């Protein structure tokens, strides 16, 4: 059966615009806070923030009530690896494309955002692709469908950059007719990364030297600013997170060694399918791991994957999340989490943490999102059944206390949109050219 795709509004905005100061109470719900247990109760929301969550909450007279009888509420899902909402993914022409950034090409009208929302995702880490050893800069977005590009960015999220190891960056790119591109081996990938960081150190030294001279009153032309090296200097200074695409144990250890040599930390290892083999080393470095539940064998370097990967790394004390890297998989990350209960025996709460509070911690946004706690953003998903059930369907999604997805509303608008589409299609058909009699 073909997966049904939600259509989304053409110029949709949030269906319920919450006025400043609006108070909302979701009640009679089964609440899965992820960090503070689960209970039957209610959530009080004011100004887009969770004020209270418990078996009973203070309900002001003016509050708008949402009755969620028999339904489940969980924190909005966070996807630590996605490429939706951008009009470019790879700058594959060079092996170091750190001068590029997703922020320049964010597309808030990508239908993928609406569909992710319909799958319960409220926040995602939008990464550059894996075409090169050092890729471009990321952004973290909220699925605020209908808002402008600047408005979907999660303000305050730590800046990051994509790295990639293994087969993708050593491919020579471009296909027929394309020029060969260094590197062509895993050795070369390591060399490219070391070389780039050596350059970055020299660049920083040149600026430090210039600033020293300028402070002494020397008359010198300042160094040229280099947008390729500046993000790498930020990595060396601990101001920018490294999110590294990787598969094999050997390349994971290589990157951790390179990072130790240059004195920076790898924030997350992405995909990390053989992470279970080197979980101790990952834990020692302090890197997080963001993996798939059971997606593998699509290429040589992905053959040694096992469905126990997430659970095994988790048991070793690694901070683990599950990601999608796909606009389709993104719509059922709850089911991906459920697989770790079957493979590895994680508890319901541990499984849900893999797609909520853990990715929030990896992205250092856990003060804002990732669990149902007072003071956090009211990013909430209402399911009709327990979200770890295959039968659960997303009913409503709130971001910052505003309703951005409502299944009933979507369903009720479909007929009208189909009709409009048919009308316009007929109207725009080219008039057949008249033939001479």
């Amino acid at each position: 059966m073909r997966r049904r795709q939600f259509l989304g509004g053409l110029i949709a905005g949030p269906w319920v615009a919450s006025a400043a100061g609006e108070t909302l109470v979701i009640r009679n719900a089964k609440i899965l806070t992820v960090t503070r247990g689960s209970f039957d109760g209610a959530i009080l929301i004011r100004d887009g923030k969770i004020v209270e969550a418990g078996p009973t909450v203070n309900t002001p007279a003016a509050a708008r009530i949402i009755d969620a009888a028999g339904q489940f509420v969980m924190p909005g899902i966070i996807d630590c690896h996605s490429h939706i909402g951008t009009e470019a993914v790879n700058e594959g022409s060079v092996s170091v494309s750190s001068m590029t950034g997703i922020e320049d090409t964010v597309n808030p009208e990508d239908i993928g955002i609406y569909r992710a929302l319909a799958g319960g995702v409220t926040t995602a880490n939008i990464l550059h692709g894996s075409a090169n050893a050092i890729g471009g800069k990321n952004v973290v977005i909220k699925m605020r469908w209908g808002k402008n590009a600047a408005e979907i960015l999660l303000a305050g999220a730590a800046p990051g950059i994509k790295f990639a190891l293994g087969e993708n960056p050593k491919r020579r790119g471009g296909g027929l007719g394309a020029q060969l591109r260094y590197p062509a081996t895993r050795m070369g990938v390591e060399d490219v990364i070391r070389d780039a960081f050596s350059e970055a150190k020299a660049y920083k030294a040149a600026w430090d030297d210039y600033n020293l001279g300028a402070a002494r009153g020397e008359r010198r032309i300042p160094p040229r600013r280099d947008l390729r090296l500046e993000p790498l200097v930020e990595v060396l200074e601990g101001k920018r997170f490294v999110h590294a695409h990787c598969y094999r144990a050997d390349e994971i250890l290589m990157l951790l060694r390179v990072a130790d040599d240059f004195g920076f930390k790898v924030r997350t290892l992405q995909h990390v399918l053989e992470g279970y083999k080197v979980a101790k080393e990952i834990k020692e470095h302090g890197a997080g791991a963001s993996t798939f539940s059971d997606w593998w064998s699509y290429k040589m370097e992905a053959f040694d994957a096992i469905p126990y990967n997430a659970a095994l790394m988790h048991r070793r004390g690694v901070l683990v999340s599950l990601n999608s890297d796909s606009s389709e998989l993104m719509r059922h990350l709850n089911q991906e989490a459920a697989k770790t209960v079957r493979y590895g025996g994680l508890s319901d709460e541990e499984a849900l943490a893999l797609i909520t509070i853990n990715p929030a911690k990896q992205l250092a946004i856990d003060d804002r999102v990732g669990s149902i706690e007072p003071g956090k953003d009211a990013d909430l998903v209402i399911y009709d059944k327990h979200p770890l059930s295959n039968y659960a369907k997303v009913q409503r999604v709130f971001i910052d206390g505003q309703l951005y997805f409502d299944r009933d509303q979507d369903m009720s608008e479909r007929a009208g949109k189909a009709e409009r589409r048919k009308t316009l299609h007929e109207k725009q058909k080219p008039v057949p050219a008249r033939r001479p009699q």
Partner: protein
Amino acid sequence: MKRRQLLLAAASAAAFGQSGSPDYFAIVNAAIHPVSGPAVGSGTLLVRNGLIEAVGANLPVPAGAWTIEGKGLHVYPGLIDALSHWGLPAARPSAAGGAGRRRTPDDGPANVQFPEEGGPEERPSNTSWLKASELVQPNDANLIAARNAGYATAVVFPSAGIFAGQGTALNLGGGRVGDMVVGGPAGLYLTMAAVRSSGAGFPGSLMGSFAYIRQIYLDARHYKLAKAMYAENPRGLPRPSYDRALEGVLEAPRILLPANRRVEMERMIHFAQELKVPYLLYGGVESWRSAGILKAANAPLLVSLRWPQRDREADPEAVDSLRTLETRELAPSGPSALEKAGVPFAFYSGGIERPADIRKAVRRAVDAGLSNEGALRAMTLHAARMYGLHDRLGSLEAGKIANLFVTDGDWLAEKTAVKMVFIDGRKWEPSAGRPE
């Protein structure tokens, strides 16, 4: 041809300009549409030595001025194509142009040859030093066809590459290019085309193009600083290398940035503000839903008259997305939305070559709610204003350049014919009886 009321008084050859029109003349009894002010039902427009001397209802015709009877005729400022590639030579494929590159709708016609690149300062896809004024072919057939349709001026730009080159406003009087140029450099035309396929050179993506442009501006400012410091006192300083690609970037008074969809408008406004460069957006397909963000930034927009339409070759059974269908349906209502919101905009030909098609395209915008006057302004005074040329072009006012066109009816009506076009005061008559 109906009532052709053109009474030139007996003439001596000496009083006529090169093309056979007099240097000092008055159009009398015509409906005059100055654009800068209210229309005059029946008035006189006086031209001397290529400039408008006076416009008004009851002007006496001075002794020595020739008279052109304008009864039943309408006089408008000469039309301006606010972003044009007319008159530029066709592109020749070259290595620097990006072999195998796909053309995008933002490209405009392919019409500029890339000189050979090379040297240590190679900056791919940057030919900011190219000047339209040095490339234009003054008697190009497109320029003549445009003139016959009422166009007196085109702001012409090279269009290949990311930094394509410098534009120039040209009066379409033909002859020597030096006599056609109006004003200084009009601006630098940018495209966001990723010029090289993946793996074959930077930039190879939209993301890469943004990073590349940003670095070029940093480099240009660094170059400017280094040159200034060196000029002030060269002793002890490394000599900055001459870089023509950065010279062109620094010389441009403004940049033109492509922005068709709303997301592109938001993006480009943000980008131009970051670069701290005066800018014009061009494209505007989704201006019907973008007036708010344009107004908030007071962003000037050049709207292409080539409205999106279904490809004639498309599978008749294939149904496009609702978003695509709505865009085609509503794109011509954009100018009306801009007019209501008070967003500065001007029209450009957008690659349409037949003048009849341009008029048809303008009528679609008017049918969708744009005022007739608003449409005329978008092709005259507002177009001039985009380039700071409204002090000399774009309206019928004393002292301005005598660019005008004369019709036998409302300029937009289907059956109206252009009877005369004056450029720098010189008269051109569209060849009678020839289809456009």
